[in-house]
């Protein structure tokens, strides 16, 4: 057990701190995940790329910094930005999903055309994967793209296209070979959101906000060369980059930050003459959650160490989504209980705490439990991949149905 990063990394950490001290004031204020970046955010992004604090390992010729992969340096960057409360560069779906895909499977022309402006925040992308009828079973997607006069002609509907309103472009899975087996008939297309025939409608969720959209395609014409990978290979193109450490492990301290916020809430929230923290039952729940957060934090350090050794994450990694989402939801649930009747205030009410963040979180985190592979799909994966338990037997009817429980996790927002 050695939790030091070593002297060369201490120097690097110092460098990052210096940068943040010197330039941190130029960082834009918190930017919504779904928003088009502001000019300040674009400037900040370019500065971060210049110093190698984002797009760090993307080759220089495509607009990145061109460094060798170094997990610890990436981790140090994430830690220091998180500690300073300064946004660590753009983290949209174009950067996290499209860019790695193009790097791996795009043509040289595609790489040169799309990666740099995407990294710089000049092109905003949205993702067209899930459909109302294809959630957990993503490969059942029906949006069709028939070939007609040198174009794909797209008809159908996508859902959970979170940035569709702001996006310039979409990367999209469509069915190009209707007669091929389920997973073999899909292609991965990229096209402009200005193409005629696209309609974007905001999708309001239970939180009362429209964090997502539905996107409808009516005879949308896309030139045949706007495909990544081969026709019929779209399923594999989309899945190829899922194994990557996309921009590391996300914000490593998100759960800890939520827990600290809960601690502050319970110390501040008055009940009678005391505060919520004085209540032994609520406090017991808090400490139990604190222990779990600690376990997940150290589990993250273990995954990091495994990566440094070149090991896959194994079980430690397979359980992260299931446990973290549940834990975040439980933290919000305790916050609501600690607030008592105050816990139901929302919609900008008088006396509402923290702009209703706890209720919003409580609901949105339930969405996260469902999205990106429901808890049930996660458990299937843990059992089948992690514990090597047998798959369910194939069913007799209907004869042609494919068993595809091993849905790529991390993408399909729609769920069981």
């Amino acid at each position: 057990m050695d939790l030091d990063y070593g002297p060369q990394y201490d120097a690097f950490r110092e460098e990052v701190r210096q940068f943040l001290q010197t330039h941190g004031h130029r960082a834009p204020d918190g930017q919504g995940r779904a928003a088009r970046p502001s000019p300040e955010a674009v400037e900040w992004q370019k500065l971060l790329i210049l110093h190698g604090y984002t797009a760090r390992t993307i080759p220089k010729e495509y607009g990145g910094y061109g460094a060798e992969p170094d997990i610890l340096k990436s981790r140090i960057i994430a830690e220091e930005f998180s500690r300073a409360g300064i946004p660590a560069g753009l983290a949209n779906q174009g950067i996290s999903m499209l860019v790695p895909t193009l790097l791996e499977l795009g043509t040289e022309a595609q790489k040169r055309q799309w990666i740099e402006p995407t990294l710089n925040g000049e092109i905003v992308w949205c993702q067209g994967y899930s459909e109302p009828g294809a959630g957990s079973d993503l490969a059942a997607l029906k949006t069709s793209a028939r070939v007609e006069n040198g174009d794909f002609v797209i008809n159908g509907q996508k859902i959970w296209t979170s940035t569709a309103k702001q996006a310039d472009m979409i990367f999209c899975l469509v069915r190009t070979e209707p007669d091929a087996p389920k997973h073999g008939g899909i292609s991965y297309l990229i096209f402009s959101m200005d193409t005629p025939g696209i309609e974007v409608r905001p999708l309001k969720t239970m939180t009362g906000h429209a964090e997502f959209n539905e996107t409808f395609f009516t005879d949308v014409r896309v030139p045949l060369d706007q495909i990544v990978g081969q026709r019929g290979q779209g399923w594999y193109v989309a899945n190829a980059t899922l194994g990557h450490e996309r921009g590391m492990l996300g914000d490593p301290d998100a759960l800890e930050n939520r827990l600290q916020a809960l601690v502050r809430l319970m110390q501040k929230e008055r009940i009678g003459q005391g505060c919520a923290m004085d209540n032994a039952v609520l406090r017991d729940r808090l400490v139990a959650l604190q222990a779990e957060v600690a376990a997940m934090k150290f589990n993250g350090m273990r995954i990091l160490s495994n990566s440094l050794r070149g090991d896959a994450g194994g079980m430690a990694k397979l359980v992260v989504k299931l446990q973290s989402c549940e834990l975040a939801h439980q933290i919000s649930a305790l916050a609501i209980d600690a607030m008592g009747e105050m816990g139901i205030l929302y919609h900008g009410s008088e006396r509402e705490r923290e702009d209703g963040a706890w209720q919003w979180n409580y609901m949105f985190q339930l969405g996260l439990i469902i999205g990106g592979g429901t808890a049930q799909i996660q458990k299937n994966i843990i059992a089948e991949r992690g514990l090597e338990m047998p798959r369910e037997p194939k069913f007799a009817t209907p004869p042609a149905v494919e068993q595809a429980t091993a849905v790529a996790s991390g993408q399909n927002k729609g769920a069981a």
Partner: protein
Amino acid sequence: MDFGLSQDQEMLCDAISRTLADTCPLDHVRECAEGSVPFSDNVRSALGEIGIWGMMVPEQHDGLGMTMLDAAAVAEQLGYAVAPVPFIGAHVLAPLALAQGGSEELKAHWLPRIAKGEAQIAVAIAETVEIRDRAGVDFDGAKLDGTALFALDFLEADAFLVADTAGRMHFVAGDAAGLEKVALKTIDRTRSVGELRFSGVAGEALADDGGATVRRLRDAGRVLLAADSLGAGQAMIEKAVDYAGQREQFGRVIGSFQAVKHMCAEMAARHEPCRSLVWYAAHAFDATPDEASLVACHAKSHTGEVHRFVARTSTEVHGGMGFTDLLGLHFWFKRIGFDRQVLGSPEAVRAEAAALQGWTQVA
């Protein structure tokens, strides 16, 4: 021996259920919830024809003088339909309080109007459960000062009944001098709560009975919140089962997956005994007052826990669709959330239940 609803009560439930099915479809709920005042005139008038607004008003004041079990049966139906109408505060707690401690003038003036659905009195007793934000209303023998939070059925109320810090109820006219009214917005937009700020307000004190009325109101409120939650939970289970029977993934309806079936089974297994608990708690309110407070606590806290689980699990069964606004499932989710927290979240109510049994040195 007949545990459960009588035939009359079942007929009442059927009538309400049919009326709500006709007048209160999801689109209408949505429309009301998105308006500035959630209460639906259509639903109010349709339910008024069944007579429920006066169900808890004594017969001598033009009401039906029905029981708490009747009221619980109605509350369950309202929860099932997430009906955007005033009920627990204005049509149960208010007439109970007036009948128990109101002057003859107050009773004669207000009770018949409540029964006809022409008057709405909001009821504020939150501070008798827990003091939040240093709220509380002091009564100096003449005037009221302070703050009362979470008056139930607040918007459009003609008058208020409010508990003071000594546990006595006061009637306050809606236009009383020195009274400031502030609506509170909650996750549940099918109901209305609000805050009352008193600066030397003249009200009319109800009989000083050492807190007995307040305790009855708290018990009644808890039973009815539990009953509302019961109805909303029932609806969420049915919706989950229906959705799972239709939604296909991997070439099967998802309801044929054992994981989904077990989620539904667990909801049902935890939910079903709540029905008997709520019924018994309502019955005890009328029949066995000695145990009424304790069993009201059990009904409130237990349904609060069970239906938080049901609300979450039903949403999960609905997958992404459950998370959207499209199916409106969240109206039930939020109604359950409201029922859980109001008049004491489960921990607070369990602490009270322990104290009632002498299990705590510090109550």
